[in-house]
């Protein structure tokens, strides 16, 4: 009997509520004290096709999906055919044999349980919509797992309006009862409520974490044009803007969004936009303008596989170099890559502060896998939120000399005033300019202004000594150091667990700040590594190229995957073993 160590997969057509079901189940696990990871795999279509949501729930922290699943809820036949081989020995498939005919041959394995539940019939009898088949199946799953059905009922009550909630509760009950009656004690996996440390936890996606952080950080303008997989940030913020006194709007294009957040930053509000590859291209000109005008909006780049439109609903890490070098000319910027939902929140707070203090663009580079996967994490500490906007002149400028928006100071940072400040006229300029913001073409002054902008890097670099620009996970020293950035964190942490089961074979260096590149810290850490393995969701190993450029060393191995899918931990561990 395996208790509280479960991988469940809900699969079916798009539009069948796959993601919703997975999330409801995940929440039921969360409320039972479990740690949960949930991720959705979907295609670029609205109905039909094949979607699946994977929920992994355990007592200990879980960082990503597993290679195998224990229980499948199959709302169509395709789900069975596509995922049966992922099923662990002794695993089960909940399906509606009235709807889905599957032959032994098709199944081609006999070490798993087929659990027929008349989903359609039950849903019909309840006079509910077809989508309620899901909930029936969830009820059956809870029965098989011997989990407390009350938790799910409460989840449903909280998720829906009373009438719909009751319908769903009835549906789960029917599914629960059917399974209890017909499949009692035949499944080797159980879920049980467990005690937690009492800390409140949430089940949150990377995109939501970024959005929450933006609100926390005082962001008052969010402007964006929809682009998968960044769009849920827009959806989330649009749904709460009234509660948080924020202006959230969908613009006509990404170009508009980018210039709008830049304008807003100039005028004194914290602002943010998000997009994916194609939209980021269109924003690139505006990012350069931000560099030149020393404004400080935050840009979230949620990657998906390219080139071009590529695989629009899948995941990749192929835009790192582009994010670092986008836009003509040279100017300091921040490129920060959170690895999980906790970092997504706290690093976004940092991004807002650093962008404003140093008056540079901040790019948060994330991807579909991080952005659209949910994870349980402790609620974000609201007492920790610190806003640091650098030196701001408010209300009235009291200086004796004329206010100069781009004043050349010791550290390159010019105190900011915003338009509307008495006695200060605030002028900035995408052309090269003098301290007052007037256009200049003078070679000496131009050099000075360029130097001023880069000068800020010194103070920034110093401040970053107090930030976790990299993190070393696992044993302090190990023969092999795995290196990664961004959303590969979950799979790498899990792979490390597998690899280090018996001895401390590997540790894991997570690079969080990609620009400015934390060369010294990486150097120090790599000094004690005999062998290095870079793991990336891209084709050319862009992180390796950065390590080469900045450290003048090559990594020993690269494990790359660029099919749009995240790494699975066991196969990743296997691939790491193979190269070692």
């Amino acid at each position: 009997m395996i208790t509280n160590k479960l991988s469940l997969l809900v699969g079916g057509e798009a539009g069948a509520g796959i993601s919703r079901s997975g999330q409801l189940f995940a929440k039921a696990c969360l409320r039972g004290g479990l740690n949960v990871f949930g991720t959705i795999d979907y295609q670029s279509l609205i109905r039909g096709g094949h979607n699946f949501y994977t929920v992994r729930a355990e007592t200990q922290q879980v960082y990503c999906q597993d290679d195998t699943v224990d229980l499948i809820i199959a709302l169509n036949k395709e789900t069975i055919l596509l995922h049966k081989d992922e099923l662990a020995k002794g695993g089960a498939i909940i399906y509606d044999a009235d709807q889905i005919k599957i032959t032994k041959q098709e199944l081609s394995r006999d070490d798993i349980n087929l659990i027929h539940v008349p989903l359609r019939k039950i849903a019909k009898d309840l006079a509910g919509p077809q989508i309620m088949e899901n909930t029936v199946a969830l009820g059956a799953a809870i029965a098989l797992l011997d989990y407390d059905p009350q938790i799910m009922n409460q989840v449903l009550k909280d998720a829906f309006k009373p009438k719909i909630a009751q319908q769903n509760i009835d549906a789960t009950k029917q599914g629960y009862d059917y399974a209890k009656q017909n499949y009692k004690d035949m499944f080797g996996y159980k879920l049980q409520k467990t005690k937690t440390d009492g800390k409140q936890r949430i089940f949150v996606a990377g995109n939501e974490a970024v959005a929450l952080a933006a609100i926390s950080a005082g962001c008052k303008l969010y402007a964006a044009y929809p682009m998968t997989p960044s769009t849920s940030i827009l959806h989330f913020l649009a749904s709460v803007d009234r509660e948080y006194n924020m202006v959230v709007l969908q613009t006509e294009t990404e170009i508009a969004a980018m210039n709008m957040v830049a304008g807003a930053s100039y005028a004194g509000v914290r602002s943010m936009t998000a997009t994916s590859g194609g939209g980021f291209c269109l924003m690139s000109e505006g990012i350069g303008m931000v560099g030149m005008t020393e404004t400080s909006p935050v840009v979230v780049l949620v990657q998906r596989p390219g080139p071009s439109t590529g695989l629009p609903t899948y995941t990749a890490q192929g835009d790192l170099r582009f994010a670092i070098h986008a836009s003509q000319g040279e100017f300091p910027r921040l490129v920060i890559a959170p690895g999980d939902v906790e970092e997504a929140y706290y690093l976004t707070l940092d991004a807002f502060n650093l962008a404003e203090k140093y008056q540079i663009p901040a790019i948060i580079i994330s991807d579909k896998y991080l952005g659209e996967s949910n994870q349980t994490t402790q609620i974000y500490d609201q007492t920790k939120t610190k806003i640091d906007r650098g030196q701001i002149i408010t209300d009235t400028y009291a200086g004796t000399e004329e206010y100069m928006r781009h004043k050349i100071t010791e550290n390159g940072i010019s105190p900011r005033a915003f338009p509307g400040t008495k006695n200060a006229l605030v002028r900035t300029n995408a052309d090269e300019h003098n301290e007052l913001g007037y256009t200049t073409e003078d070679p000496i002054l131009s050099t000075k202004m360029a130097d001023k902008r880069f000068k800020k890097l010194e103070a920034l670099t110093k401040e970053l000594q107090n930030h976790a620009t990299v993190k070393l996970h696992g044993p302090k020293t190990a023969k092999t150091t795995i290196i990664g950035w961004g959303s590969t964190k979950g799979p790498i942490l899990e792979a490390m667990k597998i690899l280090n089961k018996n001895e401390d074979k590997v540790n894991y260096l997570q690079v969080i700040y990609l620009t400015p590149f934390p060369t010294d810290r990486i150097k120090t850490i790599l000094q004690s590594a005999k062998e290095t393995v870079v793991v990336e969701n891209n084709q050319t190993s862009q992180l390796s190229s950065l390590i080469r450029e900045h450290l003048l060393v090559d990594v020993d191995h690269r494990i790359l995957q660029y099919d749009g899918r995240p790494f699975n931990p066991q196969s990743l561990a296997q691939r790491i073993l193979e190269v070692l």
Partner: protein
Amino acid sequence: MVTLDDLKTPKTNTWCPGCGNFGILMAFKKALIELGLQREDVVLVSGIGCHGKMVNYVNINGFHGIHGRVIPAAQGIKLANPDLTVVGFAGDADQYNEGWGHFAHAMRTNMDMTLIVHDNMVLGLTTGQATSTSQQGFKSKSTPYGVIPPMLNPVAHALISNGSFVARGFSGDMFHLKSLMVEAIRHRGFAVIDVFQPCVSFNYLNTYDWFTQRVYKLEEQGHDPTDKQQALQKALEWGDRIPIGIFYKEERPTYHDSLPHVKGLDLPKLSSKPVDVTASMKEMM
């Protein structure tokens, strides 16, 4: 009260002698004086082109953005601080070529700001190529055999896009232009003025004389600026007689009227205060 002297900047003006931009510059300064606005409360946003240099010649707040993006940058400023008077200065290429994608949408959105387009029917600063408002047959370095397509009609487009204040001015008639600007800035909503601006260096066709011979004032011909139908009719007039003045004007809700939740708030100040998101996190439990 702000004076002409207050509005002067240390920058040497680098427009060609006789350029139509001077009329626009002076009209704007006089409009500011007439409106009695404080320099600190007005933001000038400009695109890239000869017109873009406006930012160097008026001593108020200024945001000299990139080519074609006056509208979104100005909108961002307005959204950040609706107390500011935001006036954008764009060029014909800037707005009707590179920035064309924003134009209709800005009319629809109706934020309370003003857009002034220096319409010299050429790309001035890049040495005189044809733009979308160049007349058919206009010869330039990029169109040595003459412009092929018929010209774009920005006024008609503004009307069709629900522009709530649509006007055309002529930089050769500075006082008239100034009064248009005063009305435009006073207007609650998005106001656009397309300004005929002779480019003495490159537009050999649409000269001061050419315009002077043709333009007439709508208000002198009894045009009713609340009649959209008539406005559209007038917008389509082009030839020996070309109307200037206010084509259309209406009071309709501004974008901010639909944002009750930020009404009266000092957003730049609020950006300095952390916000507790516990309520949202509760939904994620």
